């Protein structure tokens, strides 16, 4: 049974620029039996032909999760800690709405299982006061789970930001992305917010 000792003082901080593409996070994620040993974190080459840049992406746990809103089967739920959970296995009808609607490109549809699966911030671990698997193995600091004070000490020239702009859509998330000091949002494709 779930024993909830979720530490609300701890947050997830993502810094894709620090990703070295080692896939340690994927391997650690795939250790988890709650995902059926399927990695829920994604490591990509951004543009393999042009640069060696790699990037890591986990679920950002949106404040208003579009994946849950477009789910026709009410299979995706957000809990009181702001964790957007993977699809309820009894309800998911494998329509892929969440896969295509997520602005971060996170959910995966596992075709043979007829099921969407996504990162739930290792709820089995975080609800017991532990750190997510990926954050415990990342060697380059692209993934960090801890308090805001710890993060500020480690990255004095960065600011954690949890606001993104995709076109005209503003998205706020539980997970932070590390931005240059003073930034307030990450504009992915859209207009910068007026100061």
């Amino acid at each position, binding site marked *: 049974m779930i024993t909830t000792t979720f530490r609300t003082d701890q947050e997830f901080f993502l810094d894709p620029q620090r990703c070295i593409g080692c896939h340690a996070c994927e391997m650690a994620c795939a250790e988890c039996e709650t995902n059926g040993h399927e990695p829920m974190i994604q490591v990509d080459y951004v543009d393999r032909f042009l640069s060696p840049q790699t990037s890591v992406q986990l679920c950002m746990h949106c404040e208003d999760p579009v994946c849950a809103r477009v789910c026709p089967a009410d299979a995706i739920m957000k809990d009181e800690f702001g964790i957007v959970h993977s699809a309820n296995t009894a309800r998911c009808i494998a329509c892929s709405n969440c896969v295509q609607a997520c602005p971060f*490109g996170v959910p995966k549809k596992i075709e043979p299982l007829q099921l969407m699966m996504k990162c739930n911030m290792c709820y089995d671990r975080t609800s017991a006061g532990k750190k997510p698997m990926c954050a415990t193995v990342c060697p380059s600091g692209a993934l960090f789970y801890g308090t805001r004070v710890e993060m500020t000490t480690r990255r004095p020239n960065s600011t954690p930001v949890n606001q993104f702009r995709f*076109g005209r859509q503003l998205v706020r998330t539980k997970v932070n992305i590390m931005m240059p000091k003073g930034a307030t949002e990450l504009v992915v494709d859209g207009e910068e917010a007026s100061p």
Partner: protein
Amino acid sequence: MISTLNLRAAAVAALATFLLVAAILLGSRNLANFDPALVAYLFGCIFACFGVVYRYCVWLQRPPTWRYFARGWQLFFSRRMVVYGWELMKHFVGDLIGQQFIRNRGMTLGYGHRLMASGCFLAFAVTFPLVFGWIHFGLKPGGIDTYEIYTFGFKTGEFPLHTWIAEVIFNALNWSAMLVIAGVMLLMRRRLTHAGQIAIQTFEGDWLPLIVLLAISVTGLGITLDYKFMGGQAHQFMAITHAITVILFLIWLPFGKFYHIIQRPAQLGVAIYRKAGTEGPPAICPHTGEVFDFKMHIDDLKDVTAELGFDYTRNDGTSHLDLSPRGKRAALATAHLKAREQSGSFFG
């Protein structure tokens, strides 16, 4: 409560309940063939009918659900009805009857769920017509060795007593109870031993449904065991506890985990939607240059997200949803790199 009541859904649910009651009166020949011992089950069924239809209607009113529901029927009744009908049949057999996708999620889960589902559907097929008085049995006049089956008051068959056919028919609910118990045992064992399940399971969502099914099956078998081996001494206790567990199941059906039984056929609608989509133009990601879905789905999703208040339109009139999941991840990483670059330092 009145302020949160969905009037349209309540009206449809009331109509469905009225139609069910009318069908019961008509099918049981004005309750002439109704078994009064089953009256508690009847009220449970009527409540479940209202609750299930009400929740189904509320569910259908959600924009994404309505989009699939409307598209599914629109495609089914199109000129390609035969093609989509065949697709529907394939998925009905493979997904709903064969449950291959559940088997793919785990061997124990697959076999356990198949056993439970077959037991439950056999029980539904027997119980509902009996409770509604649509089917009843009677001794053939002029003898004591042949039973007659009446459906909606019309004789539809007969079978000799004290034969294997009679044993199979009279014990149908016992067979279903055994199937359910076997399935529940497998799934309970899985919930006790699978580390992944132990970590995330909940009592209400995962254990209670198994306990309810087990209670229904054990008390149901108890009725037979009582009259076979105990001379009916515990009949009242067994009958009442069985009725309580079944009625609890019926009342809980619209609200709890068992609602997935009603919801699951939506997967068939998704199957024909995908079939139709793959026959149409594909969606190609501007970043990867690869097909990642079909255009109808992405276009529908743009409409649904707009209806829900999300606007991913970019300055050039295209949408963030035109990108594949990989394209979206690359867009974010590129934007992050750009922001770092503009700040004068790649790391901070």
